[in-house]
């Protein structure tokens, strides 16, 4: 991959508890190139957010990185001391959270939150930062930005606040953005706008994006490649079109089958029987085997192969067949 911004190698996150060590992220590897949007999809608790938090260094104790490596722009960052990692946050990697209503400090003007972030990371004067704050708001499509700089968060609607959050995450021009379900808390009508905005800004600046979501629509709309996670492990990784049209992992196939598509005109949606096992109750072998329609004896003994050769972590991947494009 040319121009790799983020590279995650065999990342393992552990949460020690009184009874056992839980492993919300297990041996996950993927790369994101400059200007590329990688979708990370999976059910709640699949470890997608946990992986994002591990990258930006905001895991809540007692969760911690216990294996693997994280490389950002050619530098290893998973073992950096706290203060050095803090300097990278905001400057080299930004994060957008799910709920724009609670992401902004209610007592500070948005202009102050913007300038504060820039002054922390960039070597510029206060007046220059104030100028850039207005420009940043204009760029994310806030009307009358010069006046709105002085507004407080509660004076904005939800969609506008998420635009402000994006402006904040991007204001020091990081090379990586981790967007953790950035549209989940928004009205459906606003979701598409926010995704389009994120996509446009990152394409323009060549920012790499890790877009964490459980919405396949968002993935199809915005992403170049998609990583499907299940029970902390990577199930499938590949270009969006291929994964959507020809899923090779039975779990991905089930996920696609359970997504309503207006064009297909299905009567009933397929569903995957059962539910994702809780951490610490993972079955032996492939974590998906109790729910898998194709599971064989071998699936119950050995963990599936890692993703180095094929793109699905499955012993018996679905053969590629020519489906009629939707």
């Amino acid at each position, binding site marked *: 991959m040319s121009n790799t911004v983020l590279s995650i190698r065999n990342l393992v996150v552990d949460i020690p508890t009184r009874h056992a060590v839980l492993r919300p992220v297990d041996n996950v590897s993927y790369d994101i190139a400059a200007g590329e949007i990688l979708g990370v999809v999976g059910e709640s608790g699949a470890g997608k957010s946990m992986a994002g938090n591990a990258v930006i260094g905001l895991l809540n104790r007692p969760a911690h990185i216990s294996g693997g490596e994280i490389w950002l722009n050619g530098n290893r960052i998973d073992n950096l001391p706290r203060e050095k990692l803090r300097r990278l*946050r905001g400057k080299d990697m930004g994060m957008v959270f799910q709920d724009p209503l*609670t992401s902004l400090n*209610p*007592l500070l003007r948005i202009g102050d939150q913007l300038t504060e972030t820039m002054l922390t990371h960039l070597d510029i004067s206060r007046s220059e930062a104030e100028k850039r704050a207005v420009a940043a708001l204009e760029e994310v499509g806030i009307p009358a930005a010069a006046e709105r700089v002085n507004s*407080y968060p509660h*004076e*904005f609607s939800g969609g506008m606040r998420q635009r402000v959050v994006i402006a*904040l995450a991007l204001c020091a021009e990081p090379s990586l953005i981790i967007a953790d379900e950035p549209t989940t808390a928004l009205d459906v009508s606003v979701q598409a706008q926010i995704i389009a905005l994120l996509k446009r800004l990152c394409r323009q600046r060549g920012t790499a994006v890790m877009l964490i979501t459980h919405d396949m629509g968002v993935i199809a709309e915005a992403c170049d490649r998609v990583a499907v996670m299940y029970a902390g492990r990577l199930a499938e990784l590949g270009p969006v079109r291929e994964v959507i049209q020809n899923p090779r992992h039975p779990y991905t196939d089930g996920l696609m089958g359970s997504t309503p598509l207006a064009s297909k005109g299905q009567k009933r949606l397929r569903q995957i029987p059962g539910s994702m096992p809780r951490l610490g109750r993972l079955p032996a072998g492939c974590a998906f085997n109790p729910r898998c329609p194709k599971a064989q004896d071998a699936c119950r003994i050995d963990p599936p192969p890692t993703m180095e050769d094929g793109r699905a972590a499955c012993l018996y991947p679905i053969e590629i067949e020519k489906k009629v494009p939707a």
Partner: protein
Amino acid sequence: MGNAALDPGALSVKNHAMLAYIIKRIVQSVIVLLVVGLVAFAMFRFVGDPIDNILGQERTQADIERLRVELGLDQPFVVQYWNFLARAAQGDLGVSYRQSRPVVEILLERAPATLELAAVSGAMAIIFGIMLGIFTAIRRDGFAANTIMTISLIGVSLPTFLIGVLLIYFFSVGMQFTLFGQTISTDLGLPSFGRGETVKIGGWSTGFLTESGLKALILPAITLGLYQMTLIMRLVRSEMLEVLRQDYIRFARARGLRERAVNFRHALKNTLVPVITITGLQLGSIIAFAIITETVFQWPGVGLLFINSIQTVDIPVMAAYLMLISVMFVAINLVVDLLYFAIDPRLRVDRTARGH
């Protein structure tokens, strides 16, 4: 909604709403004071007979009648109440039965002692309370923070008079014990009663300017402020822990802000909104609770005056004290409400229009 800043008239609308709110609060305060005034006034009628108290055993019926007219006790209740309020509003709170001097004069003489004591212990409670609260919240699992939290239980649970007596025992009387063959005394020579020497500046007698005055302040101020300090500290800690869990703190961290900026600029300011309410009310009770501390340390303030006036059924003094304390509480509440506006921009929008 959400476009307040785009609307050119928005600012004046906001100010208008704020003004209306302030006027509403002032009207409420006046009603509260009228009710308290009624209670204070009722004491004249129902707690003992002032004529008995003033004239004593040797009295004639003519004396009684004359004094009754002189004190206006022959008039209807409502008229008396009105006269009482009218005089109180002009700063005339009657004449002390005991000292035969205007109550206002006595109060003004005593007020500096109480106010200085309250100011010192209030400042101590706020400064140390907030600092320790922040410290114990940020170093949540640290040894020092846990130790402070444990010790603070003492401050919350020991009654004020006991703290006062213990402080006198340790640092004024002095406890002696032997350590490694040496006798050590905890006596710091701090006075256990009175204000020490005071200096008169205008009508105000201050103990801040003499060494003995400052020394005399130490033990009473600690006694009075310790409870408030631990309360403020525990409140700041729990609020701060709550705020540190919020998304905007995570987002501030995700933007790589310095730990100090996250803790003090983002977290502390959000912590202060609820803390101000409690702290404001606590400052009121510092003056009200001063009664106990002033009694323990024989501190010549209004609290001690009040206790003595109860013993001698000096109703005008009691009534005046009641009025004074209630005026103070109402004033503090008003200031607290106005401080909200200064800190929290969300309140500056017209609340009735937003429906909550």
